[in-house]
């Protein structure tokens, strides 16, 4: 069974962090969409989707991620991801998400870049 998904948004001028606690599935679509719009109401160019390391992301969750990637590209924003397990990194590579996003170990890595 899926774990309930809670989404928090933290933002600075440079970086929007969308924190995903739980599993990313179809049930989280509206919350993710709202978090994206709440987080991106400024000019931040970088977005970090921060998973909790145990998050399970099914096909519907990946479709939600694809939606965010396409929206971000249209606005010239780049998506980073952290806390993605090795298994889901393979899935992201399989569906092509890694071509459009960057997986990082922590938000510090983005700030250093």
């Amino acid at each position, binding site marked *: 069974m899926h774990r309930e998904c809670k989404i928090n948004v933290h933002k600075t001028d440079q970086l929007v962090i969308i924190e995903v606690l739980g599993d990313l599935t179809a049930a989280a679509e509206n919350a993710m969409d709202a978090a994206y719009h709440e987080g991106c109401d400024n000019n931040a160019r970088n977005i970090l989707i921060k998973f909790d390391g145990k998050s399970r992301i*099914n*096909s*519907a969750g*990946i479709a939600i991620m*694809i939606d965010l990637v396409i929206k971000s590209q249209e606005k010239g924003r780049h998506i980073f991801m952290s806390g993605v397990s090795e298994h889901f990194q393979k899935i992201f590579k*399989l569906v092509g998400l890694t*071509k*459009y996003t960057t997986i990082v170990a922590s938000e510090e890595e983005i700030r250093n870049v």
Partner: protein
Amino acid sequence: MTSEAENRYADGFTEDALVRRVYYLNTLYELNQEISTLKDARAVLGASLLYLIGVFGVKRGLIVIYKAGQAQPHEFAHRGMHEDTAINAVRQLKRHLEDMAQGHSPGSMREVFVVRDDIDSPMAAWLKDYQFRVWLPLEIDEQTWGGIALGERLSEMTFTAEELELLSTIALNIQSVLNNVLLIEALHQSVIKETRIRNVFQRYAPGTVINEVLNPSNEALLLGDSQAVRRMFDEMIARLEEQHTLEQDLDLAHSVQAYLLAEPPHIPGIEVAARSIPARSVCGDFYDFISLNPYEVGVSLADVSGKGVSAAMIAMMLQAATRMCVGSYYPIPAILAILNRFMFRHTEPTRFATMFYAQVNAQRHTFTYSSAGHPPAMLCRNGVIQLLEKGGPIVGVFEQCLYDQETIELQPQDVLVIYSDGVTDAGVTPETDDAFGEERLEAVVVTYASLPAHALLDKISDEVAGYASGHKQFDDITLIIMKVDG
């Protein structure tokens, strides 16, 4: 995992391939779980498209159904495209599909269509205009049809044969659910009409209808409690509606299962016959034949624990998962290991299945099999029965299982009998456990081994039915007979 298992996994597929395969199977399962709970067609289309976009990593998608005689699409959903663009797309698509159906335009509305530069047709032009790469038709019934269009992939890869197979399987599931949902929608519409009629009766002739349908000795009627009578009437209508829906669901499930039972294939030099007799409206057993190449066929027979609709649904899922695994030429032990893990992760702990899977090669004259806790198939050669017992545990109980396989060199006149335990358990009642049994089955096979496969199948069925005559059939009965020409 043992080194032996690693060797097996190394034989033909990689870790990445395993991740991909499990991801595809998970998607198939979860999509089916999700849409089977939905009540309206729009929600089914929306959820289906969400999963399709995610599983194939595509940038845009459209799913639409039309009903004959309606100018506008019945329902549609889209992702990755603007609403106006999607509306234009579905309007134009209807014209192309109708032109194809009437033969005014090349192509068939029943075919999977993959965009290629060298194909030029109105349908190809439509797909290119809207940046789609693949089209898969949906055929709900004679009056309702549509399809799925998927766009460019993030990976920029083209769709492989394996992925098109998965897409076809997903489409089959979506069709089944839509069929059900549309029936319920139609029933709901008829209930609304019926309610209007009842309201008219109650307004102009209160009590008339109620007195006709309820027993005059009813206490509420005798006491003149009109509110109670009305409540009874409503409850009775609700029960009738529920019963009607359940019967329609069962009919639908029965039709879907019958559709999924494959016709025995033509294998050069080998005659094949198969039959499945459910104990109830639907069956927890299934058999299937999957063509691997002109000389090789995959043969599966499985028995899911439990009975009725729940077992039948799991059987259908297991059958679809088996087809997907088999299509990629994995070794047989690996196929059963993947199916085991799939069942373990996605069914209740009390759900499991026994399964026999084999590949028959008519060119090499071989029969390679593995049995997952299934009753041993029988090989009858020169009047002697050999039990085919290699394999491993039933699927769905343990997360990691290993399976053995064995290859039999086929000889002329060999007879192979694959069956579910409904055959050997026939005749068992709550009072007695005197079943038909393996020994009687072996005796029938040896006695009538010279008959053609279909005649032997009839003979075994007759013997089982005769033995169990007068007793209710408690378990599904499934049989496959294969006979080598000689």
